[in-house]
């Protein structure tokens, strides 16, 4: 069979379910209301009912038994609708907990599978025992951390503060420590290192998917506005500079979507023409770097084309602009991420 880019019927159904749910539930009003904490618990509760939270976990632990590609489809819709729920982090952490379930009490894992308890991953290693700027750190009951000094992957379980560090992207960010938490070691040594790296790659892929969705929504917003807005007696979308300023994005969005989907397909075991095309250590950073660049560009362009309205808080364009910048930066600056990719592809600097 040649390359086939069509989703299966089941995958199409997942994407449509997620699109319908988030379009209905993740309204601009709820997004704005949730801005300070970055989390809407009622939205999370409703999301649990759809089965989308547990979908990409194994059937033997009560999950839906599908893969990361399905999670990518859902994450794209969550990103499209700026959903104020920690879906990406929770899926990544839950999958990591499932892979180390031998170390966990069964009821604890079950609560995470269902979404009754929120789990997250500290995507950067701890420094002196502190996990800084943890995605969903303000609302997560469980935080998985990697300590580079001890070489251990550990689960901290405790009560989240419910208070987010004020941030540009309205995220439920917080610093976390093990204080007041039960501590369970999940892995050590090379296994811990590899498991952490793989989980961060999954975070990269799902975050890239969310950025693809955000980008698509931002482009739609921009296109719709320039069709509607008249100046000099014509829609500003008829001016060539405006048209051309939007024309680069459909291709970049389609490309980002395919790169992200292929990366997830590879994690799920897909085999393409060349192993490099599905190696997550290469493809995940590529997907995140590309989607981040795209999202920052398209959201800027959309804000800009909204003219003075683009910078008003009461207008929606700036919601996308702020999130596009914050989501990917939580992991690393683009320069560091590029060097991380270079280390994978070319070997580390200072090497043989």
């Amino acid at each position, binding site marked *: 069979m*040649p390359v086939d880019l069509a989703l299966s019927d089941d995958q199409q159904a997942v994407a449509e379910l997620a699109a319908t749910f988030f379009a209905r539930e993740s309204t601009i009003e709820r997004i704005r209301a949730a801005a300070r904490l970055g989390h809407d618990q009622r939205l999370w509760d409703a999301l649990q009912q759809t089965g989308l939270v547990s979908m990409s976990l194994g059937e033997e632990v009560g999950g839906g038994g599908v893969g990361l590609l399905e999670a990518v489809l859902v994450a794209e819709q969550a990103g499209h609708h700026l959903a104020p729920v920690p879906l990406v982090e929770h899926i990544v952490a839950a999958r990591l907990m499932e892979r180390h379930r031998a170390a966990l009490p069964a009821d604890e894992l079950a609560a995470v599978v269902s979404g009754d308890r929120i789990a997250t991953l500290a995507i950067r290693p701890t420094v002196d025992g502190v996990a800084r700027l943890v995605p969903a750190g303000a609302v997560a009951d469980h935080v998985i951390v990697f300590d580079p000094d001890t070489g251990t992957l550990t689960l901290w379980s405790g009560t989240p503060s419910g208070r987010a560090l004020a941030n540009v992207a309205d995220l439920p960010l917080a610093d976390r420590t093990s204080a007041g938490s039960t501590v369970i070691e999940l892995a050590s040594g090379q296994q811990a290192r590899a498991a952490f790296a793989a989980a961060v790659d999954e975070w990269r892929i799902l975050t890239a998917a969310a950025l693809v969705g955000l980008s698509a929504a931002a482009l739609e917003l921009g296109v719709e506005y320039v*069709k509607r807005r008249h100046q000099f007696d014509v829609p500003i979308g008829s001016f060539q500079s405006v048209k051309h300023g939007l024309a680069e994005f459909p291709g970049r969005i389609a490309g980002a979507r395919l790169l992200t989907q292929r990366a997830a397909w590879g994690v799920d075991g897909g085999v393409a023409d060349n192993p490099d095309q599905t190696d997550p250590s290469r493809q995940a950073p590529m997907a995140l770097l590309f989607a981040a660049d795209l999202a920052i560009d398209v959201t800027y362009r959309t804000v800009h084309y909204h003219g003075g309205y683009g910078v008003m808080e009461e207008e929606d364009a700036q919601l996308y602009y702020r999130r596009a910048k914050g989501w990917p930066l939580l992991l690393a600056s683009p320069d560091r991420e590029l060097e991380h990719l270079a280390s994978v592809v070319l070997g580390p600097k200072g090497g043989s």
Partner: protein
Amino acid sequence: MDFASSPETVAFRREVGEVLGEYLTDELWARVKQTGTLHDWNLHRAIADRGWLAAALPESLGGQGRDAEALSALFGELEQAGAPYDGVANSMTLAYILGQIGSDFHRQTVQSALLSGEATIALGYSEPESGSDVAAAATRARRDGDGWVINGQKVFTSVAEEARWVFLLTRTNPDVPKHRGLTFFIVPLDDPGVEIQAVHTLNGKRTNITFYDDVRVGDEWRVGEIDGGWNVMMVALSFERGIAGGWGGGLHLYEHAAAHARSGAVDADGRALIESTAYRAQLMRTLINNEVAELLAQRAAWVASSGALPGQEGAECKLFATEAYVAAARGLHDALGPSAVLQNGDADGPGAAVIEQAYRGAPLATTLGGTSEIQKNLISERGLGLPRPGRVG
């Protein structure tokens, strides 16, 4: 969803790679460098001998009936190798057009010679006063008894210096809207009224301006209807769209730039490029964009294979891949540092030469085959539905 190419494509790609490995010799590169000609007869005939010039033709017409994915792989391999393939591309385009709408005369006299590799053909579309506005062609074909007499000029008539014929877009009717008065002819380039003048482009390649001074052809050399040239153009475009080109050049550039650093090459101040943060970062940006360009090309081929015309998909791929190539050529040239300005051939390593030439060749990518601005018009108007200029929305 399946990102793996079919086994047929994988096998074909391997075969093409083997032929390129055999025929892209030092002698070929020296000849290409010296003449700038985008064609090599040994390579061309090797491709023809394997029936690949007929790759796109249905088996019922004597072709190989290969799908869009395989054709995309063929051109991807040619581009990735930096091979001089304009003769191949033109021959395949005409073989396809003549297969669709050619007469028996065309097939016997022209198509068979093209497919055997015995002869090749040039494309005469652009003129000094009409590039993007291709429908404004002014080269005039007037009735002359049963035949036609042609006067005018064409520009960017690549491989005319090696071709037997030119596929010529002419104006047969100046009294109707411009795209309704066009007619295509196949014109022999050895006609005494034809003059070919070399034009050298800044990347060391050669194309031509061709002049047509009372060139006479019989009506049997007309392709398609009188004044129906625009429809013939659409047939030509339908062949190209599933093979959204322009993405293989980035692979060529990346491969050589990466190999250059891995070989231990240093910059003008003796610093190893493999340790240069800027060089590594630029390689990675190029690599990422190459992956995306290839996926967009796969998408265009996938749409074409379903029987649809990938107009948007082809435009999006071409725009992205060629603009990314310009950025990569500039970025790698910058990252190479001061020695990038040297034109030492391979003296500093083939990778440096490739980067140096890529910078000079980059502007051709975003211009030829439909400028970025034309692609953006297509995407914004037909894709995003933004209003044409002057329309009240």
